[in-house]
């Protein structure tokens, strides 16, 4: 009985980064507990489209298969999310798969998320502790703070928040919510806090914090439930204080 049941998928494909995209329809045999990735694997096993014509296997990115790495993000029935946790039984058919539009497409559903990693470098999303001698143990972190900071550390740079943001598009250079929240994470760390001002200065421009328009789609869309808009509002406060200090002077900077 179950041999007759099929899953219909309409996939937006692109053969080359410079070529235009096209849609291809697939009918694949249904199995119980399928996710989008196992459906894509089925196409890879037998690359024949719904018209019965042989085609190239659909290409996509994946890594951990447990929603921790962020590599398999794509737009599934209009919603950007990870394909590993998108269960076929819970999706309306035909299942429409498309690459995220915010990023350049490498091939088919695989996109190049380099801009996010560049942003992490730009905002200095790390704690510099390298030196010529042992600095000893760092300052302690209060448990209550560690708990919410841990939530921010769940970010897997998947790109869903950038895809959901109306201000991240071809007309703007806004880096998006994910790298901003990382600034808050590293500024909250007792050792990272020593470079707080430096990190804040890097996001005090239009591509940074000022690119936010408070549409708050990011916090609704984040698969890890990271309080992105709380981070942005907290950074708004921090940068307001930072600009006050840097203009009028403070005990850290004359």
């Amino acid at each position, binding site marked *: 009985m179950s041999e007759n049941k099929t899953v219909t998928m309409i996939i937006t494909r692109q053969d080359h980064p410079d070529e235009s995209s096209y849609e291809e329809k697939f009918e694949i045999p249904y199995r119980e507990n399928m996710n989008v990735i196992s459906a894509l694997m089925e196409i890879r096993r037998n690359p024949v489209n719904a018209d019965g014509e042989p085609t190239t296997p659909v290409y996509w990115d994946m890594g951990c298969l447990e929603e921790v790495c962020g590599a398999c993000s794509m737009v599934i029935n209009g919603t950007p999310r990870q394909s590993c946790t998108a269960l076929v039984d819970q999706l309306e058919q035909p299942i429409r798969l498309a690459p995220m539009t915010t990023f350049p497409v490498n091939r088919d559903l695989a996109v190049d998320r380099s801009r996010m990693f560049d942003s992490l470098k730009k905002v200095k999303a790390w704690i510099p502790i390298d030196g010529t001698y042992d600095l000893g143990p760092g300052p302690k972190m209060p448990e209550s703070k560690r708990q919410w900071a841990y939530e921010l550390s769940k970010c897997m740079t998947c790109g869903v928040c950038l895809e959901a943001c109306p201000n991240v598009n071809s*007309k703007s250079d806004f880096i998006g919510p994910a790298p901003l929240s990382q600034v808050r994470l590293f500024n909250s760390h007792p050792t990272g806090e020593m470079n707080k001002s430096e990190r804040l200065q890097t996001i005090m421009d239009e591509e940074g914090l000022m690119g936010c*328009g*408070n*549409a708050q789609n990011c916090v609704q869309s984040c698969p890890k439930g990271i309080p992105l*808009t709380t981070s942005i509002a907290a950074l*708004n*406060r921090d940068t307001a204080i930072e600009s006050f200090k840097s203009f009028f002077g403070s005990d850290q900077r004359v």
Partner: protein
Amino acid sequence: MAGTRGYVNRRLHSLLGVVPIGIFLIQHLTVNYFATRGPEAFNAAAHFMESLPYRYVLETFIIFLPLLFHSIYGVYIAFTAKSNLSNFGYFRNWMFIFQRITGIITLIFIAWHVWETRIAIGFGWAELNYSLMEGILTEPFFFWFYIVGVISTTFHFSNGLWSFFVSWGITVSPRSQKIMTYASIIIFLAISYVGVRTLIQFAYGI
């Protein structure tokens, strides 16, 4: 740093929308509300505002320059957004788009309104009194044009006030942002009433 100017512009845009433009808006609607007490009361209030000392300085620095900056930079902000309501129909995303649409409507409305009143008065084509507004608003087209313009302005201000509280890091927690949403709705309803009530007075004399 290349971006510093962008930072200052955006901060200034947010600040000017509330101080002084938002404050001026409330003052303007309040003075106009004198119309509901009859033509004499309105004329007296308008004349008082008209005869404030160093009026041109006040008008330039409290109204025209801030408004010019806020509107020009605002058009730029509005056109760098790309609406994605079809896939993300969340409340705040709607507010985000409405804020941009009402910004453009408000700009068109205010440009026309300033031309028809302040500039016309400045050139001596009109006189500032109750009958000037009565003449404009008894025409049905302009009555509805003003209704749309005033409500668009009050929405843009109320929702902008919500954004202002976030942009300056006053409301950080989701709870405080939610309560501010309710507060902004109440502000919107209250000042819209003041504005619309005045328009009805001018148009229908009731």
